[in-house]
């Protein structure tokens, strides 16, 4: 079992507020793992549970297979990069980086060797004798990274580390972080509310909402095959329409949508019966507009030119609103508001999600149950079996 961080059915509440329900996940060696969700979804609490700043009410936290649920932070071999870095203002850059090794009473030459190596890795040697106050935001960020990585942690925990930087610097630091992570080969557990950041950097993403893990998977999986409406809506833009399963075939499902119009979607990854309600999810860029032929009929209500794409707002006969992104260089068909068009899609691009009543409350089993905690779940369907 090559899992460095494992949460087993962890639950944490503060008074009446349950911050984390049933968190169950594992992070593999050298993996870049993101906890993604809106603010207040429990992602920072999850990180603090791993760091040891919070103790779980139920469940276990394991580091390299050892139960550390009751071990204080200073005896856990994980290190944190804090949101505002929390650099020690009274210490120089070098002393900040040396703080961990010195606390652990490593021999002096070893401390110096490690600190020097780390300062070189993050290009901070010329600034080694400055105080944090004399550094720019990006430099402070690198000190925080060096100070954590110098301890060779089992996993590095990062709490929205790029949140305080401006957009341009953030992009540069994303690349830098990814490079550093590959170089040191240490697992990163990365908390962010920025879906773009999570998609760009992660090997796997855990999407959280209201203290629950909604889905765990690779960026491609959570984007193309979201298992809940929340994930579909939170990562990228998504059209979500109420639908009814008509029949199930080989990899395909015939459905009725938007006022009982027939359409096709990928077979659901959960147990669905013909006649059952579901939610249809199609990304705006996967919708095509046609003047006639097959497809769901909808009226074009607005057209907005956005550069690379034209954003088309449509309304189906039953009143559902849809958005389609059409390449702006494609002239046909002519886009005229008020006209009816046919909406077409590749059945593989249309996912059926369980209706909200079934999705909520079902315990989500992310990654561990499949036997291999590191790799993606064998099939998304395993997500819904206890």
């Amino acid at each position, binding site marked *: 079992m090559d899992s460095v961080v494992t949460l087993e059915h962890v639950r944490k509440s503060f008074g009446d507020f349950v911050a984390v329900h049933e968190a169950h996940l594992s992070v593999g060696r050298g993996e870049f793992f993101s906890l993604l969700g809106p603010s207040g979804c429990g992602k920072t609490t999850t990180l603090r549970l791993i*760091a040891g*700043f919070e103790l779980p009410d139920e469940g276990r936290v394991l580091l390299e297979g050892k139960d550390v649920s009751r071990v*204080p*932070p*200073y*005896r856990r071999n*994980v*290190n*944190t990069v*804090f949101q*505002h*870095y*929390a*650099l*020690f*203002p*009274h210490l120089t850059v070098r002393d900040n980086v040396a*703080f*961990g090794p010195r*606390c*652990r009473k490593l021999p002096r030459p070893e401390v110096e060797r490690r600190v020097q190596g780390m300062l070189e890795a993050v290009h901070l040697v010329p600034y080694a004798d400055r*105080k*944090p*106050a*004399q550094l*720019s*935001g990006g430099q*402070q*960020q690198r000190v925080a990274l060096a*100070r*954590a990585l110098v*301890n060779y942690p089992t996993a590095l925990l990062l709490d929205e580390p790029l949140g*305080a*930087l*401006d957009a341009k610097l953030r992009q540069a630091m994303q690349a830098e972080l990814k490079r550093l992570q590959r170089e040191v080969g240490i697992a990163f557990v990365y908390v962010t509310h920025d879906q773009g950041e999570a998609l760009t950097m992660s090997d796997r993403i855990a999407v959280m909402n209201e203290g629950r893990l909604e889905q765990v998977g690779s960026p491609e999986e959570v984007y193309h095959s979201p298992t809940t409406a929340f994930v579909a809506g939170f990562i990228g833009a998504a059209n979500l329409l109420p639908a009814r399963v008509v029949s199930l075939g080989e990899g395909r499902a015939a459905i009725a949508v938007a006022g009982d119009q027939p359409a096709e979607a990928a077979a659901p990854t959960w147990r669905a019966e013909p006649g059952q309600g579901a939610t249809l999810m199609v990304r705006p860029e996967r919708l095509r507009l046609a003047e006639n032929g097959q497809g769901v009929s909808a009226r074009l209500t607005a057209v907005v030119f956005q550069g690379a794409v034209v954003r088309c707002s449509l309304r189906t006969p039953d009143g559902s609103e849809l958005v389609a992104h059409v390449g702006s260089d494609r002239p046909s068909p002519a886009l005229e508001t008020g006209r009816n068009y046919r909406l077409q899609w590749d059945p593989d691009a249309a996912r059926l999600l369980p209706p909200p009543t079934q999705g909520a409350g079902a315990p989500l089993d992310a990654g561990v149950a499949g036997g291999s905690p590191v790799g993606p779940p064998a099939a998304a369907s395993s997500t819904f079996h206890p």
Partner: protein
Amino acid sequence: MKPALRGQAGSRWGGRLLELYAGLVLLYLFLPILVIVLFSFNRPDGRFNFVWKAFSLAAWQDPLLYPALVEAMRLSVSVAAVSSAAALVFGTLIALALCRYRFRAAGAVNLFLVLPLTTPEVVLGSSLLSLFLSLDAVMGYWTIVLAHVMFSISYVALTVRARIRGFDWTLEEAAMDLGATPFQVVRKVTLPLIAPGIAAAGMLSFALSLDDFIITLFNAGSRVTFPLYVYGARRAAFPPQINVLSTTILAVSLFVLGVIVLWQQRVHRQNLRWIPESR
């Protein structure tokens, strides 16, 4: 432009008046201190150093001439040191508790902290005296120290609390995250960062203890501190050595105060500027 110019011209007299007024207030504040310093260089006629006669360095050359005065000074410094040390420990812990944790008694603790500052000293002194008497305590060194610790704790707690209000507690988490035990966290992070506040509080409580008169008078028994000696001296003899020792205290206080202020400014700048730019 014009009204502004006229305003400036008109305010010239107002400005002069304001300067004069401010000068008079400062004079009023500092005249007693000036007199004390000045009269330490006096060669008085007889036992009382109240009338200027002639300039002399005699008292400065022999400041420890009167054993009773030296003994009073020694007692005052000793009481101030011991009571400040005790008040620093307790007061700092109270301040840390009030800043760090939300607890049910916090409001009550806040009230109790302000009480010794607002209660008349006569009340504090006399109630302490009755307490000590009912306990059959021997009045003397330790009753003075206890009394001083009592009011100094308030000053220390309030001063330290004011200084550590903006302290970033995630620094303690960061230290713990890097492997520092709770003891190492306090020694390597918390104390170095709040030390200027503690130093200022120590200075304040030392000065308060050194010059306390009323509460000490009630609880000193037969012991005589420096302020009690000076008060008693007005009847028997008031040598310029009193002025010399007072001036020395003043000089030392000003020096220490200056050092602490400079140090605080440095630490404060560090604390303010390390927060990452968020644009």
